Structure formats: structure tokens, C-alpha cells
């Protein structure tokens, strides 16, 4: 059985560490994709379709072309060839396969039909507004009730073929029919839009047949491969740069159509082209979390033991593409139940393609299943924490294999203790404080763990500094700092001596920033690279004339605390690596590291997930129908936490997004023309500072030896899973109203009969 490394008290691993890129971020010196400037850059603004379904019959561009400063108005016949890309395994992933302008059919509102390019942004915008489009319009399909389309038993998805009967054991239907206690409810989550504050956008620069793109990407190597295919040039001719990323939450994982448009326009015009999309376009053309409608049926004994679990879900999909929202991701393993059936269907709508949004699948899925469990607890008159304890599985029953490291019950115990759960009285409206009705709720959560393939390079340099390079991205999760901590740990230098390079396809291929897997993925690659660099250093120490270790053999030497010393002797007699390199007149020694991925492995021997739970308090003022989330306590079992400061921030931030999911967030579509009508940050409501209560985060910190040497799983997404179910349960406890369609609105709560 694998084990994890012992970490010393002086190690930077596990220490709360302010971000190494913090000074750049707080002073405006951090350069995001749209912050780079190049002489002669032209600005591009797309023309958006104003229908969601139909055909573009004419695009009148003459007036726009005559406007001052305008270089071109592109459309299908003038943009030049943009080829389709083909996916190979985990490379070349894209959710909207159709390249921009490929045909004249309009399949969603806001689809790009033209592109204005001018010498300034203002002129490009004015020209785009001047372009007149004519359509043959058909009725958009935005039907809110989701009836599954007539799909085959196995459907193609972004991640390959998927059986619609996702998981089955025992006879769930029969067990449900004969169960002494039954629950049958349907839960609905709306279309949600990621809305990172950084707008997506690309600056494309051609030099001959070499292409550089500054783009906000969560997956630069994936984008490199796709752009090489779309523009029919060798992969090595494409360079993607994402030094800083204004987050993404999934919306920047795979390329969207604006990027190809910027590249195509730059190719035609022979100048750099900058295209930053508007906030309105962020609702139309760069993905969203699809709407889900999930029926959950639970059968249980009177004592609370689950005997049957059925989860049937339907989600919206685009007309052409096959993004899969895997709401059943956690259903089959989270609780012990002998009879289980998880199935899904899809319902086409005239929306742009959905895409992964933070905790894809599991977040809406756990909202439904955890809500159902809470309702069952109410029906059984059993404490919801106790109900979960009673149904704790010994193994992952869906695969028949053990968990690598599961401490879910300990999360519940710790969370309950910190929250004060034992003081809860279960009757609706029974708890009060300062004239407010209190509601308390709980829910569990889970999120997958594993590794993507990763490569890294570590250099020990003659000035005593260390450089670590990995072509991954820092989306705000703190990857710069994690890489610095890993390199500092191995090289035995303080953090400020480490230079981190990421966000550039010229660096060793790093993992995508998705699935909460970056930290887990880079650890073995960086450690191996550092070991290789250290081995080279030991060779230098023995082979360099005049070196203090000249007559020694490398195997007699050891490297620790940044120094080389003889194994048999004291560390304090060691020689710093900088001195050895200077002695050898070497600028640096370098090592490369490479680690295979485990994500998507065919037959895992253990089931790898993070677990956790959220306890939520809401306050309810019935006199004015005012609901607030007033307290959140989360307990998370995510393996070893490398940087608790940034780690807590991840869970807190997810809780903030969870408040939005439960109470505010919803993209609404106009039935006339199919437009997302609340496509701005005032009408699509997200939690602001005043919406957010005190949030307490507790990490269990059990290293998971199956993941990597440090036992670190990911924490970017798990915090959002389950929290909406905890909030809706707290709302029910306070108001007596059980909301099964998110977000909770005042209109729902007016049905409350709880008096103040």
C-alpha cells in the first residue's frame, strides 16, 4: 500500500502561505489576457444574431465598411477557412464543435454572424452596430418542462459514449414499491451562468505561419491543439499564453467561437487582433450550467435504512453538441443502498452549448439527492445527520471497491460540534434569536479526485534561486503558490527564492485547470523534476575539479536544506547548491519530471473522492419576508491541505457561490426570440459582500496515499456541492416551505405560515 511523505515542521507544505503572486495582483502588475499591448493592434467586435432559431438570409455590411477606422467587416464568405477540430482522448476537447460562420443556420441567440474590425474599440463597436442582419426566424424552443428527447440507450458526450442507464444494482423499482417509507420528489435547478469577472477574449498575432494567442484559458495545451487543427498549422507553431486568469469556473476550459474569429481576422488582415467579448456575450456564447430536472425516489425502512434509491435526471442540451451534465456523479457511491438505479435523459433547447460549471453534475445532482435525504429524515422523524450516519457505506458499492480515504462521518461529527447542531429542535419555526426565526440545515458533499498527466521542469541556479516551470494555469486557486511551495520543499530554499513559470505552451505540458485536479497532478511531476535536478547537482559535485566533493561518489552524498553533504556527516557541513554551481561555472542544473494521469482510468482499484458537509443557519423575518443566510460551517475531507490560507478561501468562495445558487442565480430566456434576457450583472444576481455571513471552514487533513506523495486531493469544487441542499433545508426549518426549484424566491416564502 502506498504511503505519503513525512513533512517536517519547517516545511512550506501545509503552512498558511500568502500568495507568491500577491504583490502583482494587488498592484495592477499582474497581466491578464487582455492587458497585453502590441503595436498596430486592431480591435474586433462580433455581430450577434438577434434570433435563436432560423437562418441568416442577408448581412448588409456596406455602410459599416465605410465608417472611419474600419478595416473589415467579416462574414461567412469572407472570413476564410476555419476547419473543425477532432478530439483524441483528453486532447482537443471542445463543447461547441461548429466553427464560427460555418453555415447560415442560427441555433442560439447571440451566435456570431459577423465581425467588425477597426483601429479602435469604439469604432469597431459602432461598425458592428451598423451591420444589418436579415433572418428567417422560427420559434425558439425554451420550454421549461424537461421531457427527455428520444435518445438511444448510449449517447455520445464530450467525454465519449455514455450509457443513459448510468448505474444499476439490485432491483430498485421493486424495492421501492415494497419499501415501508417512500419519498418521490422532483428537484429543478435553472440555467446558471459562470460569470467570472474577467471577460473572455483573445489577442491573436500571426508571424508567418506561427500563431500566438493571449487568451483567458483554463487549458492552454488543449487550446493549442484545437487552434492548430482549426487553422491547419503544426501544433508547435501555436503558442497560447495565460499568465493570469480572471477565473473561469469552467467557462474558460474549452475554446469558444470568439477565439477562432480573432485568429481568422488576424490572419486576413496581417495585424494583431484583439477581441474581448461583452458581458452580454458571456451569457450567450461561452457556455452555462444547463437546467436540470431530477426525480429522486427513496425507499427506506422505518428505522431509516435506505433500501432503494432511484435518480432520474434530465438536462438541457444544445441543438448540435453533446455536453453531459453528470448529475449522477456521486449518487451511486455516496450512501449504502442495495437497490439503485441512476438514469438520465436530455432535452434539446435553442440555447448555446452548456459546459462544465464548478462542480459540474455533482453540484446540481447532490442538491437533489441531499435534499431528498433531508426530506426523508423529516418524514422519518430522524435527525438528518443521524440518517446519513445510518447509511454510511463500507465501500464504494457502485464499483465494489474500497474508498482510498473516506472520513465522511468524521466531517459530520466535526461540523455538527462546531455548529452546535445538538441544540437544534426539529419543529418548523421552533428556534428564535433576537426576534428572528432561525432555520438550521445540513447536507453532505463529495467530489472526485485523481490526476491528469503533468510535466514540469525544476532548475537550481547559481544565484541560489530555483525556477519551477509547468504549463498549467492559475485560475485563482493559488497554483503559483503551490508550485513555489513544492519547489521550495524539494530544493530546501525559502519561498522568495523560487520563481514560478506557468501559463505558456512553451513550458512543459501541465494539467488543465479543471476537476479540482491541478494540485494533485503537479505534485509528482514537480517532485520528480526536482529529484532529477538534484541528481545532476550531485554529479556536478563529484565531477567538478576543485569541488569539496571531488573525490566522492554521488551515492555517498545527500541533498537537504538546499545543501549537498556527505551522508555520514552533519548537515551543517553541507555546501549550498549555488556554491557548487559557481565552482563548476554552471548557470544551473535542471531536471524534467513527468507523471501519468489517473483521471478516467478504466478499472480503478480504489475509489478516490473528497467528502464533506455543510451546516447552514438562516434567519427569517416573516413580517417583511426577509431571508438571510446567517452562518455556515463546512467540514471538508480533501486529503492533505498544502496551503490552508488559500484552501479555506476556496471553500468560503464556494459557499458564497452556493448562497447565489440557492437564493439568486438563474438565467432567464425570452420566449419571443430566445435571448437570455437578464444578461448583465445587475439582473443576473450574484452574492455580494453584504449577502455573506461568517463562514467557518474545517479541514480534516488526512493525507490520501492513493493520490500522490503528499496525499493532496483537490478543493476547488467540493465546497459548492451540497450547500444549496443545506440552505433549502434550513429555509424549510425556518419557514415550513420546501422549495424544490432553485433559486428560492420571496414568492415561494410568502406561503410560510410561521409567525414571528
Amino acid at each position, binding site marked *: 500500500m502506498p504511503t505519503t511523505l513525512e513533512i517536517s515542521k519547517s516545511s512550506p507544505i501545509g503552512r498558511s502561505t500568502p500568495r507568491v503572486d500577491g504583490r502583482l495582483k494587488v498592484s495592477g*502588475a499582474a497581466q491578464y489576457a487582455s492587458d497585453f499591448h502590441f503595436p498596430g493592434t486592431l480591435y474586433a467586435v462580433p455581430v450577434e444574431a438577434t434570433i435563436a432559431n432560423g437562418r441568416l438570409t442577408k448581412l448588409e455590411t456596406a455602410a459599416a465598411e465605410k465608417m472611419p477606422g474600419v478595416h473589415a467587416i467579416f462574414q461567412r464568405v469572407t472570413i476564410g477557412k476555419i476547419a473543425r477540430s477532432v478530439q483524441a482522448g483528453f486532447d482537443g476537447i471542445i463543447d461547441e464543435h461548429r466553427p464560427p460562420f460555418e453555415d447560415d443556420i442560427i441555433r442560439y441567440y447571440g451566435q456570431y454572424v459577423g465581425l467588425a474590425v477597426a483601429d479602435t474599440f469604439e469604432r469597431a463597436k459602432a461598425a458592428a452596430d451598423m451591420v444589418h442582419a436579415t433572418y428567417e426566424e422560427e420559434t425558439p424552443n425554451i420550454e421549461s418542462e424537461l421531457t427527455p428527447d428520444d435518445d438511444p440507450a448510449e449517447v455520445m458526450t464530450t467525454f465519449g459514449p455514455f450509457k443513459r442507464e448510468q448505474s444499476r444494482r439490485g432491483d430498485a423499482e421493486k424495492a421501492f414499491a415494497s419499501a415501508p417509507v417512500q419519498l418521490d420528489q422532483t428537484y429543478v435547478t435553472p440555467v446558471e451562468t459562470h460569470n467570472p*469577472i474577467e471577460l473572455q477574449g483573445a489577442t491573436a498575432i500571426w508571424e508567418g505561419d506561427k500563431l500566438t494567442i493571449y487568451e483567458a484559458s483554463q487549458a492552454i495545451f488543449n487550446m493549442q491543439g484545437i487552434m492548430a487543427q482549426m487553422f491547419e498549422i503544426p501544433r508547435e507553431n501555436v503558442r497560447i499564453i495565460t499568465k493570469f486568469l480572471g477565473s473561469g469556473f469552467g467557462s474558460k476550459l474549452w475554446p469558444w467561437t470568439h477565439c477562432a474569429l480573432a485568429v481568422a481576422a488576424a490572419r486576413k488582415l496581417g495585424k494583431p487582433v484583439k477581441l474581448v467579448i461583452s458581458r452580454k456575450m458571456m451569457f450567450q456564447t461561452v457556455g452555462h450550467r444547463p437546467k436540470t430536472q431530477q426525480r429522486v425516489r427513496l425507499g427506506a425502512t422505518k428505522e431509516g435504512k435506505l433500501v432503494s434509491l432511484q435518480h432520474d435526471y434530465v438536462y438541457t442540451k444544445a441543438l448540435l453538441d453533446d455536453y453531459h451534465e453528470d448529475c449522477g456523479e456521486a449518487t451511486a457511491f455516496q450512501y449504502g443502498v442495495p437497490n439503485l438505479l441512476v438514469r438520465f435523459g436530455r432535452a434539446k433547447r435553442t440555447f448555446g452549448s452548456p459546459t462544465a460549471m464548478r462542480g459540474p453534475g455533482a453540484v446540481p445532482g447532490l442538491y437533489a439527492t441531499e435534499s431528498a435525504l433531508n426530506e426523508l429524515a423529516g418524514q422519518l422523524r430522524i435527525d438528518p445527520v443521524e440518517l446519513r450516519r445510518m447509511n454510511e457505506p463500507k465501500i464504494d458499492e457502485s464499483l465494489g471497491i474500497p474508498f482510498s480515504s473516506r472520513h465522511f462521518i468524521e466531517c459530520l461529527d466535526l461540523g455538527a460540534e462546531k455548529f452546535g447542531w445538538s441544540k437544534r429542535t426539529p419543529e418548523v419555526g421552533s428556534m428564535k434569536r433576537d426576534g428572528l426565526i432561525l432555520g438550521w440545515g445540513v447536507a453532505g458533499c463529495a467530489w472526485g479526485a485523481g490526476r491528469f498527466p503533468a510535466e514540469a521542469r525544476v532548475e537550481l541556479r547559481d544565484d541560489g534561486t530555483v525556477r519551477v516551470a509547468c504549463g498549467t494555469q492559475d485560475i485563482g486557486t493559488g497554483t503559483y503558490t503551490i508550485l513555489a511551495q513544492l519547489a521550495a520543499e524539494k530544493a530546501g530554499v525559502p519561498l522568495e527564492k523560487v520563481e514560478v513559470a506557468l501559463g505558456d505552451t512553451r513550458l512543459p505540458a501541465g494539467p488543465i485547470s479543471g476537476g479540482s485536479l491541478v494540485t494533485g497532478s503537479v505534485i509528482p511531476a514537480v517532485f520528480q523534476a526536482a529529484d532529477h535536478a538534484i541528481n545532476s547537482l550531485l554529479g556536478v559535485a563529484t565531477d567538478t575539479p576543485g569541488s569539496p566533493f571531488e573525490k566522492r561518489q554521488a551515492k555517498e552524498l545527500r541533498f537537504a536544506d538546499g545543501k549537498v553533504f556527505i551522508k555520514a556527516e552533519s548537515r551543517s557541513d553541507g555546501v549550498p547548491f549555488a556554491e557548487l554551481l559557481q565552482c563548476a561555472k554552471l548557470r544551473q542544473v535542471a531536471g524534467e519530471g513527468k507523471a501519468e494521469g489517473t483521471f478516467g482510468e478504466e478499472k480503478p482499484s480504489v475509489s478516490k473522492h473528497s467528502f464533506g458537509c455543510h451546516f447552514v443557519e438562516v434567519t427569517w423575518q416573516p413580517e417583511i419576508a426577509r431571508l438571510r443566510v446567517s452562518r455556515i460551517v463546512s467540514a471538508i475531507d480533501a486529503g492533505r491541505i498544502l496551503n490552508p490560507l488559500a484552501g479555506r478561501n476556496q471553500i468560503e468562495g464556494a459557499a458564497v457561490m452556493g448562497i447565489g445558487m440557492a437564493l439568486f442565480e438563474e438565467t432567464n430566456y425570452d420566449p419571443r426570440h430566445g435571448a437570455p434576457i437578464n444578461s448583465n450583472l445587475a439582473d443576473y444576481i450574484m452574492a455580494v459582500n453584504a449577502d455573506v455571513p461568517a*463562514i467557518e471552514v474545517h479541514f480534516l487533513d488526512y493525507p490520501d496515499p492513493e493520490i500522490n506523495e503528499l496525499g493532496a486531493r483537490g478543493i476547488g469544487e467540493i465546497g459548492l456541492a451540497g450547500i444549496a441542499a443545506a440552505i433549502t433545508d434550513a429555509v424549510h426549518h425556518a419557514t415550513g416551505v420546501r422549495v424544490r426549484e432553485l433559486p428560492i424566491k420571496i414568492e415561494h416564502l410568502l406561503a410560510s405560515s410561521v409567525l414571528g
Partner: protein
Amino acid sequence: MKDQTQSQNGVAVTLSVNGRKHDIRIDPRTTLLDCLREHLHLTGSKKGCDHGQCGACTVHVNGRRVNSCLSFAATHEGDEITTLEGIGQPENLHPVQAAFVACDAYQCGYCTPGQIMSAVALLEEPCGAADAEVKEFMSGNICRCGAYPNIVAAIQKVREGRERPTT
């Protein structure tokens, strides 16, 4: 087709940004935000919505915080404009900037320039001592990463430091 710098339609304006004067000729439709970013290459101020809804573009005009995306550059003749770059630099951080680093009051950092410009302005505004007051005063700046608790902590850390000498 004419280059912007030769444009006959441009408006001549002298902008004072971070204490430095810039004589420019600019399209009257150019917002202060786009002028700062695309013409003066002061990219610390960020565009998140272009509608005055997110606060990422917050700058100070004559000491007051404003959304620079809602203001035309050509209207700022004679105004003293301060951007994040004028507040402090990587090796010379303002106390609010240093507190943001210490408290991890960000994640991706994209809304951070606006948060810090609001926070620096807040120090001189009639904001009460309680966290709840700070939250209200900071609710014009959206942080999608949700670093709000740490943003409040960073601001309170600076305010406690400032108020201590007088109490």
C-alpha cells in the same frame, strides 16, 4: 480609413493620472476605463461588465471612487485621476494592498483592483466600525471567487491599524 491619432473627430484633452499629465486626442465615445487601458496602457483597472455593475473598473476622481466604465475620458479635463497603479507598486505597497496579500483577500485577482480602490476610498468615507458596515460599503464590487470574508478582514486590519494611535 484614418488612424486614431490623426482623427479629425478626436477631442483634445489633458488627463492627469497618478500625478502625471497626458495630452491626448481621443474619440469622444471612449470611456475613461478604455482610455486608461487601451491608450495609456494602465491595465490595472479592469473591465468586467462595462455597465457600472461589477466595480472592477473603480478609480478615484478627485478622491472619490467612480466606475471608470461609466464616464467618458474627454470629460475629465482638470480632474485628478488615481488608478491602482498610483496607489502602490509591487515593491511599495499601500497598507490596503499589503493587507489584501496578508489576508488572502482575493483569488483570481481580477476584481481586486476595484476592490482595493473602493477599500482605499472607504477609509475616508463615513463608514461605521462594524463588519456589517464594511460589507455594505463594499457591495458595489462583485468578487465572483467569493473572497468577501477575507476582503472585510483586510479592510478591518488596516482600519484597526489606523485608528489605534488616536484611541
